[in-house]
């Protein structure tokens, strides 16, 4: 765990999906360091460094957050709202990655200042293509804020 590593916080309740994402992003030339958390409450604990995550060394700030909307305990939208309301966290790009393509979810997410909204595709190639693009864009091209 070095400072130079690109950190992605993956908040995803489905372990299988998390594994798929981890594998595809791992194929990137600049493979990121992925922290997987499977429920909303734990994600907020990590970000606010509460409970088991109270040690800042154990919970470094991610560069990008990949957030599922349907999460146990605390809903993904609540997590997003909380991040964007926090002066410490709001600069971190939050990419909503969910299986829902409902318009209401898309608008709710953007209204809560989501930086991007991606729908999980069905096919393997499509899924891999999307995640590669995410890697290229967010890991290579996108310029992040320096805090």
């Amino acid at each position, binding site marked *: 765990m070095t400072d130079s590593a690109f950190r992605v916080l993956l908040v995803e309740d489905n372990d*299988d999906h998390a594994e*798929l994402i981890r594998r595809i992003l791992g194929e990137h030339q600049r493979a990121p360091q992925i922290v997987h958390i*499977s429920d909303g409450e734990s994600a907020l604990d990590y970000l606010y460094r509460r409970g088991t995550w109270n040690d800042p060394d154990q919970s470094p700030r991610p560069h990008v957050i990949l957030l599922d909307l349907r999460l*146990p305990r605390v809903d993904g939208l609540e997590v997003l709202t909380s991040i964007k309301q926090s002066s410490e966290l709001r600069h971190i790009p939050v990419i909503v990655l969910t299986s*829902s393509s409902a318009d209401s979810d898309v608008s709710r997410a953007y209204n809560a200042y989501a930086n991007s909204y991606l729908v999980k595709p069905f096919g393997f190639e499509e899924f891999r293509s999307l995640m590669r693009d995410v890697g290229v864009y967010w890991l290579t091209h996108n310029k992040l804020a320096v805090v």
Partner: protein
Amino acid sequence: MRTALKFVFAKMKSFPSRLHPATCPSQVQYVVCGSMSLCRKMVHFLRRFAQPPHFDDEEQTRIAQTQHLLLVVCLTIALFAAGANALLQRPIPTTALLSCSGVLFISFLLLQTRRVRLSIIVLLGTIIMLTASLQFIGHGAHDTVTSLYATMIVIGSLLLDRRSFIGLVVATLLVIAGIVTAEARGLTRSPYEGDFGDWFDLALILGLTAFTSRLLSESLERSRARARANEQALAQQTEALRLSEERYRILAANLPDSAVLIFDHNLRYVLADGPELAATGYLKEKIEGRTLYEVVSSSFAEQVEGNIRAVLSGRRFSAELPFRDRIYVCHYIPLIDDCGAVKYAMVLLHNVTAQRQAEANLRASEAQLRMLAENMGDAIMQLDSHLNVVYVSPSVRRVLECEPEDVAGKHIAALVSPDDAPAVATAIEEARESGASAIRVEYRFRNSQQMCIWLESEIRLLYDAQQRFEGAILSTRDVTRRKEVEAERERLIAELEQKNAELERFTYTVSHDLKSPLITIQGFLGYLEQDIRNGDTDRALSDIRRISAAARRMEHLLRDLLELSRIGRVSAEPQTVPFNMIVQDALELIAGRIAERQARITVAPDMPAVYGDRRRLAEVVQNLVDNAIKFCDNQTVPEIEIGVHAVSDNDVVFFVRDNGVGIDPRYHDQIFGLFNKLDPQSEGTGVGLTIVRRITEVHGGRVWVESAGRGAGATFFFSLPTTHTQQHGVGHDRQRIQSIAGGR
């Protein structure tokens, strides 16, 4: 003489009135014409001269006429006597007679110059002088001419007033006395040998004659005056009668829509006039003077004869009389003369056809309005400018269920419940200020049975020409039922909206949760292919396990969804079942798991019976007990208690208490959501509590959880009905669940 004069006049008139050579063929004829014209003028003068003068005073005229006649007679006698004297050589000198004629002519001239009194005096004076002269030259007082005094006295009594007459008589007696005296002295031609006794006799005779003739004359005068007065009175009466009739006629002719008929005792029209007479085609000229039977049909005459006879017998009354297409009001009035007897019967007819028609129309219109007001669905009220009820329709009985008398006269505020009165008053006030013509208000009203009903009033505001508020018309109807329906509709809409939102969440959740395993399968299939190509057996096996788990998970989801959709479907007829039996059913279904974890389950004895679907209710208990075991630490022996929390009239609240991990109060609502799992790693799809909630709701009950938090255990409560009255909701929800299942 008059006849002769008239004859001459007639002849004169046949000649041309103007002389002109052109109109006269010869000179002779011209001379004749001129002479005739002269003669005519003379005759005209004579004619005027021969006639006595005329005075305004009738008495004066009469005296002048009598005097004129006397003069003509005397003059004729005098001239005749003078002629005869001259021929017969009588002792009376002709000159005397001629001079007497001259004096008479003077008297005549005086009369013609309208000096009647002087003319009489001259005449009488002449007669006295003439008589005295004749006596003097004759046989004195014994001469026959003495009788002329008597004639003169008779003439004087006719022509003179009383004083002058007395003077005349005295003068006559004095003249006779003078004659007698002269005779006695022997101054006359034949001396008198008698004494004054003869004079007394004469005086007595003449005095008696004077008295008698004067008496006669005055009596005649009085008779004449009386006759004249009578004549005048008659003339006045006639004039008065004429004027009276004239007035009647003017009145009759100008009374609008009227006619006046006056009948005598023979039912003869004395007077008939008026615009109505002409309007019915009768001419007054053809009616007046004829009898009733001659003018109208005998049947109609018979009809009205009784009435006219009644008037003629003195009755006075009014009656209505239809005639052809008209209706008359007849006033029968007896006309009474001075003696109090009925002289005529007057019938004053007034055409009231239009009035009757208008009255009939008004009655019909009134009846129609009344019928409308009484049969309208709405109660109609009229308010004055102070908002007091001045009219209320009988339909108020039906609408407000109170008597019109209870409402009339009251202020509008008294008809509105106190809660709504300020709002209604404000609405009317605002409408008045803004000049609005109509507003609609809804308010509550407590009727005579003290039932609160909802009323709706359409208020039409009335203003006068100056835009001042005059009052209002209220049309009020009972909208209680509509209000109930509206409330019911609102409730249903809210319920529907809630269900819709629920359905949306359900669909969303289902689509999301069903997609997830498919993405997993697709994704790892892709990697599996890669692994096989790369010969990475370990990862291939791992991928296959993931694919298999996802497929299984998919199967469970579908199974649970199917299960959820079946809730409410009739598996068995609802029945009343002791709750202990339901618990027993449930525990038998999960006996394996209970045994596996050695869970200790305590069930309260003799719990109340509930009404519902026995199998579904067992599922509730089964799920709750299953959860209680599942969310219990592996190191802890599950202890589960089932019992009754509360009992009310219609339902019972049961509980299932455990000593498990407990639930953070933040998630107490969330856990009942479809596929909601607090712990993603826990087994199951997260549909169990959703099924529990659905089943209790379908039975008209509800479910909730109480737990202090993690490690504190949890108690699930659920209410169920004890009687089938609550079952009413089951049908609804059953349909709803079926429709959801069908919709998918």
